[in-house]
């Protein structure tokens, strides 16, 4: 085998999932390719030109669009364009269908007629015109549509990254735990607990008027609490040799119960604006949670591939006994891994609370399953010893892209669940086939 082809096969084995992600992205770009309707100032100027091209005499025009910032740009550009061509603009409506009705009522009181309606696509589809006798026959002019994919809109791509950021952040810790052949079922409940405890602390020490110092203390406090509970999981697993599945299952119940107790089952929304910046703010147009995710993945990747701790983690997952005999500090490493996993779940919870502007004990429901799915689809083996942090990032994105794509293509919610289950199964299947190719060989040789 030549050097080049061995490199290629290694790339495929390591990042085959990246190829899947690319295929999915193209698939959804294709499926969501449809007519797009422009708004904003360019569309406003364009529509003024369209009117000018077909105009045969003086015209009384009404311009209609919604009240959003973009739509206001559309109406003002259209008005300017029309006015410079000498067209009379009798009314401009920026608002709701109701405002159109009120405006027309006012115009007809003044005895003013409308020959033409200029609107963007959304406003032209309102049914209000059909209800008003004066407007029923009035022609409507809209900007020319263009073709494009909903999936590839920058707002959608950023949205997908933002939607997956919290799962992806928690999945870093989960990857480390699963590489050691363990599991952490408590992350979902820790998300709820961190969200509730941070929100509660901030509400009790000032509420809506809390200072930034209080907010920072609340954020750190929430993460620290989950860090401690993660360490507790670690102690149970290492010192008392309990199976991680049971320990973290117990923690899942306890943390959820605690979150409900602390909040009396209600959401805590009396929080200051400064708290919302962490999850809701943007830096250079990209939401903060996405930056946080990128930063943590860089750190996670270096930790797992370039440091002694990373090698210890893989060694324990490969063969715990062998690792112990060759001098790996197994207990300390495991303790660290569960602590990090708890802390990242806490961080996820605080970011979520900040994004949703409240802390609620119902947050984080079934997140452990979303996160484990991302790790497994990303190629980490549940048997331990194998897996990559960047693979998990790709796994998280595969799931997020499928969910987003299915929402954009109107897939029935029950079918969405079937597809997501199928993807998870496929992830595990590919992982197993990669490690045990003899199964496939046997299957095919029997038939042939």
């Amino acid at each position, binding site marked *: 085998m030549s050097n080049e082809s061995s490199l290629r*096969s290694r790339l*495929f084995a390591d990042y085959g999932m990246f190829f*899947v992600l690319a*295929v*999915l992205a193209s*698939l959804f770009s294709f*499926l969501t390719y*449809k007519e797009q309707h422009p708004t904003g100032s360019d569309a406003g100027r364009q529509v003024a030109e369209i009117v000018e091209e077909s105009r045969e005499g003086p015209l009384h025009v009404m311009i209609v669009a*919604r*009240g*959003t*910032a973009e*739509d206001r740009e559309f109406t003002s550009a259209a008005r300017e364009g029309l006015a410079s061509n000498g067209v009379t603009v009798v009314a401009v409506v920026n608002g709701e*269908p*109701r405002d159109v*009705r009120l405006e027309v009522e006012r115009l007809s009181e003044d005895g003013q007629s409308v020959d033409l309606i200029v609107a963007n696509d*959304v406003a032209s*589809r*309102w*049914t*209000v015109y059909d*209800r*008003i006798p004066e407007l029923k026959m009035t022609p409507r002019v809209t900007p020319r549509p263009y073709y494009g994919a*909903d999936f590839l809109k920058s*707002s*959608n791509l950023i*949205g997908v990254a933002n*939607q997956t950021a*919290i799962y992806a952040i928690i999945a870093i810790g989960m990857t480390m735990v699963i590489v050691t052949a363990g599991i952490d079922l408590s992350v979902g409940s820790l998300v709820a607990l961190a969200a509730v405890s941070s929100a509660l602390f901030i509400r009790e020490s000032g509420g809506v008027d809390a200072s930034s110092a209080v907010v920072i203390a609340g954020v750190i406090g929430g993460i620290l609490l989950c860090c401690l509970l993660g360490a507790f999981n670690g102690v149970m697993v290492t010192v008392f040799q309990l199976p991680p599945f049971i320990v973290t299952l117990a923690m899942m119940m306890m943390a959820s119960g605690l979150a409900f107790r602390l909040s009396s*089952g*209600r*959401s805590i*929304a009396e929080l200051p604006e400064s708290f919302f910046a962490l999850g809701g703010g943007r830096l250079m147009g990209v939401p903060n949670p996405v930056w946080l995710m990128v930063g943590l993945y860089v750190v996670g990747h270096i930790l797992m591939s370039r440091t002694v701790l990373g090698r210890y983690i893989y060694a324990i997952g490969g063969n715990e006994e062998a690792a112990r005999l060759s001098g790996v500090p197994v207990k300390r490493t495991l303790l660290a891994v569960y602590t990090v996993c708890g802390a990242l779940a806490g961080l996820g919870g605080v970011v979520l609370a900040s*994004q*949703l*502007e*409240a802390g*609620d004990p*119902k*947050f984080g*429901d*079934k997140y452990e399953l979303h996160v484990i799915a991302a790790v497994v689809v990303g190629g980490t083996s549940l048997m331990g010893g194998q897996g990559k942090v960047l693979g998990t990032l790709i796994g998280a994105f595969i799931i997020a892209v499928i*969910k*987003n794509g299915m*929402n*954009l293509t*109107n*897939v*029935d*919610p*029950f*079918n969405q669940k079937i*597809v997501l289950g*199928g993807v998870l199964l*496929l992830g595990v299947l*590919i992982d197993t*086939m990669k490690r045990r190719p003899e199964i*496939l*060989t046997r299957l*095919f040789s029997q038939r042939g």
Partner: protein
Amino acid sequence: MRRLDCCSLLLISLVWMGCGKGESSGPRGTDVGSTGESVTIKGTIGYSALTLTNPFFKVIADTMTEEALKHGYELIVVSGERDVKTQADQIDDFIVKGVAAIILNPCDSKSIGPAIKRANEKGIPVFTNDLAYDGKDAKVVCHVATDNLQGGRLAGDAMVLMLKETGGDVAVLHFPQAESCQLRVKGFTEKLAAHNAVDGNPQINIVSTLDGGGAREEGFTAAKDALGANQDLAAIFAINDPSAQGARAYLESVGKEDQVRIIGFDGFITGKQAILEGKIVCDPIQFPDQIGAITIEMIVKHFDGDDVEPEILIPSELYYKADAEADPALQQKE
């Protein structure tokens, strides 16, 4: 060789997924052809339900799909799965799709606010039904729900009718977290107080109010606690059918089902069945089909430029055994 196998596996799965899409993506373009005649589509409406496993929301979803199509709108239904982040993500996806309007059953009355605000900023009108948004920052055009206060009053009337000759002790199985249930209990208590205020009337006293969790298991436990403290209990008012059925299960297990009679709430199919079997005396019932139909009506009114009331409450009605015997929905089941 094995690389090839992996590739073919992937390919097959993707083709399968692609096919799934094709079938379910529904009408594309500008014409709706499913009813035979061609109607110009005026836009799509996105609906994120609290959950679709509860038949109540499934009825709302199905009614709205039908009604929306009649008016030339296509309804896209997704399920928030009771998780507010999932629901917020779905709202963002609706915004990307450029839907004409959004309908929600908020998975959390407060933390859904930021997502509604994002829809407001894009000029997309938001409607809620059954569950309301509780906050000031975001704007909901109209909320459609059952009149729970009036429903609670009906339950109170039914209780007075049942106990006016004898008087007696009553327990309430509450679910205090939900605002709807607070209204139901408020209406119920009002009617009992009005009865007790008349001189010479035998007194009907609420001797205990317990959290029945709105669920069967917790209703069972709450009924046990209520009866343990008050041996002479004459009746129970449960704020929904599952907790009423849990209470009934406990009463049957200790042979007290003839002493303590139960009034529930909701009137979903299992509750109606229980009324037919005489396990629950009566229910003020809700009408999910009306909730769905009126929500669509309000959206149509909004786009017609009419004034839309910010809140529309649909009155409840009492449903007794006689109603159950005449109910075609229950006849079909047998």
